[in-house]
């Protein structure tokens, strides 16, 4: 008899998604994967546009991480023009970005993943919603939302008012920081510094409680994979540095500038999804890998700020180095929130932020590749620009696409621990959703998906549909 299980929907993740679980005739798991519908044609509309517009237009493709695209495009243009951005330009970009990371991680931890953290793996789906969490602890929720808002305010003050940042351009930042704005930024950074320790402790406390309640999270939900992250001087670096590939034992296997990404990362098409799989290509072999907060801490020694480094030591005490516990993505996100708050304060205090922020740029024709560590992982922009400054081809490699292989592995693990031999559909739905959300996938640029966001889990056995389980929010 076949088994088809449909989960509908995966809430709190942007995108349409379908999960399939194929069981073999003997009932063991044969394959599992997330099927997504890609937003098609985005790179094509960039062709023929002026290269100068890339930071503006790519920031508009995704409402979730506009600042990451804004800066990845800027870096690619710097590379194409062969310019070095002056120190103040780099610092302002970094400050803009710290605001974005604070905003994005606060949203992920406390809003999108909050219900998982507060209520756990086996909570009644009806109770597992963010409104319930807010009601249960309004004071903490207020602080978490305030943290999110302050991050966004920093992002907007440096990036320009409005939904999408506009100030980063080829060659630097088209914005001069005056004393009044700097005073405001210092005020917001100080408020964040006062909020962050309590918020980080709260999120960590919830996570540790889940680990206690569900020992399987530490034992079964473990994915030994390679890790890809940006490192500079041994530290996690979100905006500049070499890409490092660290294997499942923690050994550094490759270190390369982003301009070599095309030789180092291999895309392959699967017949069941629009999204391509990406693997690290190394000495003739291909390796599954992860990107994002956990991958970043697995690639670097530390952050270089005291609170983040202290917390990273605690993570390693629990999860080892490298850490392959999937749910520790959340822990690493907590640490990056601390880091971004600390780093924002450092940048605002740095006198170098007041210097010239931009150098003139001229495109002489050629290729430009740039990247950032987006909240969810490495984001690469690659443009071919002609001598008139017009984009002739474009390629964007986004984080969720790179995590696709490991997301699928996590789904298989969730299914193995919650489906095989068990008839409990509610537990399956919870486990699959919980597993996917550990990656905080944003499917809106990797793929697209607005609309009802249905996640279906289709379970088949021996190729025949077995059962369909649907859950509706209401």
């Amino acid at each position: 008899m076949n088994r088809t299980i449909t989960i509908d929907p995966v809430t709190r993740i942007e995108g349409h998604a379908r999960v399939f679980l194929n069981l073999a005739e003997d009932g063991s798991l044969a394959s599992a994967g997330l099927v997504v519908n890609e937003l098609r044609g985005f790179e094509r509309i960039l062709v023929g546009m002026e290269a100068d517009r890339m930071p503006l237009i790519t920031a508009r493709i995704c409402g979730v991480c506009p600042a990451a695209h804004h800066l990845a495009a800027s870096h690619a243009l710097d590379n194409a023009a062969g310019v070095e951005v002056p120190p103040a330009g780099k610092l302002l970009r970094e400050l803009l970005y710290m605001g974005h990371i604070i905003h994005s991680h606060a949203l992920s931890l406390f809003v999108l993943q909050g219900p998982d953290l507060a209520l756990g793996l086996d909570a009644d789906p009806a109770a597992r919603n963010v409104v319930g969490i807010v009601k249960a602890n309004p004071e903490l929720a207020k602080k978490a939302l305030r943290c999110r808002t302050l991050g966004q305010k920093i992002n907007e003050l440096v990036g320009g008012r409005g939904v999408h940042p506009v100030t980063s351009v080829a060659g630097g930042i088209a914005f001069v920081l005056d004393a009044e704005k700097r005073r405001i930024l210092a005020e917001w950074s100080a408020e964040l510094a006062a909020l962050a320790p309590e918020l980080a402790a709260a999120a960590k406390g919830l996570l540790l409680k889940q680990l206690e309640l569900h020992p399987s999270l530490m034992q079964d939900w473990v994915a030994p994979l390679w890790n890809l992250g940006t490192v500079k001087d041994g530290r996690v670096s979100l905006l500049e540095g070499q890409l490092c590939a660290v294997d499942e034992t923690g050994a550094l296997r490759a270190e390369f500038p982003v301009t070599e990404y095309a030789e180092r990362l291999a895309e392959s098409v699967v017949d069941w999804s629009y999204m391509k799989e990406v693997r690290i290509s190394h000495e003739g072999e291909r390796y599954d890998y992860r990107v994002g907060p956990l991958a970043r801490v697995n690639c670097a020694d530390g952050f270089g700020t005291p609170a983040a480094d202290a917390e990273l030591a605690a993570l390693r005490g629990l999860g080892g180095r490298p850490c392959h516990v999937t749910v520790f993505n959340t822990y690493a996100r907590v640490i990056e929130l601390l880091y971004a708050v600390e780093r924002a304060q450092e940048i605002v205090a740095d006198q170098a932020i007041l210097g010239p922020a931009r150098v003139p740029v001229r495109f002489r024709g050629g290729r430009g590749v740039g990247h950032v560590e987006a909240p969810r992982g490495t984001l690469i922009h690659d443009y071919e620009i002609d001598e008139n400054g017009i984009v002739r081809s474009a390629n964007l490699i986004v984080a969720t696409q790179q995590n696709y292989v490991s997301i699928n592995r996590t789904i298989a693990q969730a299914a193995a621990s919650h489906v095989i031999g068990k008839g409990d559909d509610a537990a399956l739905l919870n486990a699959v959703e919980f597993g996917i959300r550990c990656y905080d996938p944003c499917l809106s640029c990797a793929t697209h998906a607005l609309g009802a966001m249905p996640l279906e889990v289709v379970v088949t056995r021996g190729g025949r549909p077995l059962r369909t389980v649907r859950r509706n929010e209401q």
Partner: protein
Amino acid sequence: MPNQRESPVDPGARAAALVACIGNELVADDAIGYEVYQRLRRMALPGETRVEFVGVGGLALLDLLKGDERLLVTVDAVQLGAAAGTIHRLSWDELPAAAACAVSVHGIGLRETVEIGRILYPELIPPVIRLVGVEGRCFDRMRAAMTPATAAAADGAAEAVRQLITTHEVQSDGYGTA
């Protein structure tokens, strides 16, 4: 949330309207919120009305509220199963939760956003909340693939927003009925 305010606005002074248009101007039918935004900006709207474009919306909506609004209208693409281009005028009771509604804002829908706002910042949340939703069909292609019927609904949706503002400007008993 957002903006910490020292002196909440006297509820009696709530006279303004906020129109928040949600969407992505680059993506097929998701561009409808932006199209309606462009039309509303050029229209003469009654009273003290602010029109904003907010991209993915969600919790960012709370940042836009000043606490002096009588009415919040959000404009968004929806997928409620009607024909493309259908203009839905939904009251609070009819607002779909994120899962059932189209354009999710990274998982947090209008309904959840307002519920969170009512718990944490009750003084900010307007008494009357409406959604003008335009039925879309295509969300996985770029703007050139916008469904003609959805695009053609932009004028009607803008007019629906104007009517809502007019209605709630003259109604003095709109409180508590959201």
